[in-house]
């Protein structure tokens, strides 16, 4: 870099020698994590739109059932606990990955996956119960926006769980190679991000939905 002088520097014969502050020691870092963070931010915008739709339609019951009639807060509390627990168990898996302990990582990933499945099971039970009661997404604008918002979050958790299983296979086959650590980090961001969205869901949809 310092041996080849740029064209403009050779123009001035009597000028001082050019000084280069970039000595080439550093180079662009691994960009995957920043790129994945940007994806999460765009995903955040999707959820923001769905939250806005729910904010607008959340009280349009069309003479149908409202949140007070439908929401079972104890079920929501259990779901919240499952997702919160799965966040810390994923954290323990990341600490295992940091120290290079493969069985530790696989064990905590399995626990995280089971908690995610528990969350999905309860959510599917809730949805089935609502639809069975005649409170499906076609009943009112409130229920349409409710199913879209909560269903999109559930779909994210579903794909997160699939990704988690895929990653468990990869870690058990190839070990904690740098590529797998990077993938674990991406899923970590994804999983914790879903927990952040769930804070919005349980507060804005469920808790505020049962307020008169």
């Amino acid at each position, binding site marked *: 870099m310092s041996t080849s002088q740029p064209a403009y520097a050779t123009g001035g014969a009597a000028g001082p020698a050019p000084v280069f502050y970039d000595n080439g020691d550093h180079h662009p870092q691994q960009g995957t994590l920043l790129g994945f963070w940007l994806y999460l931010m765009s995903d955040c915008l999707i959820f923001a739109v769905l939250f806005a739709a729910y904010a607008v339609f959340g009280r349009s019951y069309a003479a149908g059932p409202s949140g007070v009639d439908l929401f079972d807060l104890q079920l929501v509390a259990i779901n919240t606990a499952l997702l919160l627990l799965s*966040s810390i168990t994923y954290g323990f898996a990341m600490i295992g990955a940091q120290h290079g302990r493969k069985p530790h990582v696989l064990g905590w990933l399995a626990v995280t996956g089971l908690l995610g499945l528990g969350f999905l099971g309860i959510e599917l039970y809730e949805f089935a119960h609502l639809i069975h009661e005649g409170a499906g997404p076609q009943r009112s604008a409130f229920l349409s926006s409710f199913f879209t918002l909560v269903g999109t979050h559930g779909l994210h958790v579903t794909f997160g769980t699939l990704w988690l299983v895929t990653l468990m296979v990869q870690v058990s086959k190839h070990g904690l190679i740098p590529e797998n650590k990077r993938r674990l980090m991406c899923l970590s961001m994804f999983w914790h991000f879903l927990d952040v969205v769930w804070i919005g869901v349980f*507060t804005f949809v469920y808790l505020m939905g049962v307020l008169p």
Partner: protein
Amino acid sequence: MSSTHDSHADAHHDDGGGYHFSTRGYVVGFLLAVVLTAIPFWLVMAKVLPTPGLTAAVILGFAAVQIVVHMIYFLHMNSKIESGWSMLALIFTGALVLIMLAGSIWVMFHLNANMMPVHDMRIRP
């Protein structure tokens, strides 16, 4: 800058973009999250506060604090990682989300208020 060469190599070793994890951080974040989740559920389920409006405001406040706690302790967000670009993207997204939510609620509330069906049928065209 020559002394940073070793730490540079370390940064490549864990390939983390500046992220660091500790059991203590996760446990502290988890305990804070449990408290910040339990209080809103208790407020709503036990009907502690006198008016629904006050309850809504308080639980929204708890949610905002809990989101910050999750960002710091679980997503390891700070102004250092990725040379600050993650934080910049987060702030930009936060601004967009605020504009989108506040704007939608504001516009649609006024639209609803102005498009209410007229109760007196005689003045309808």
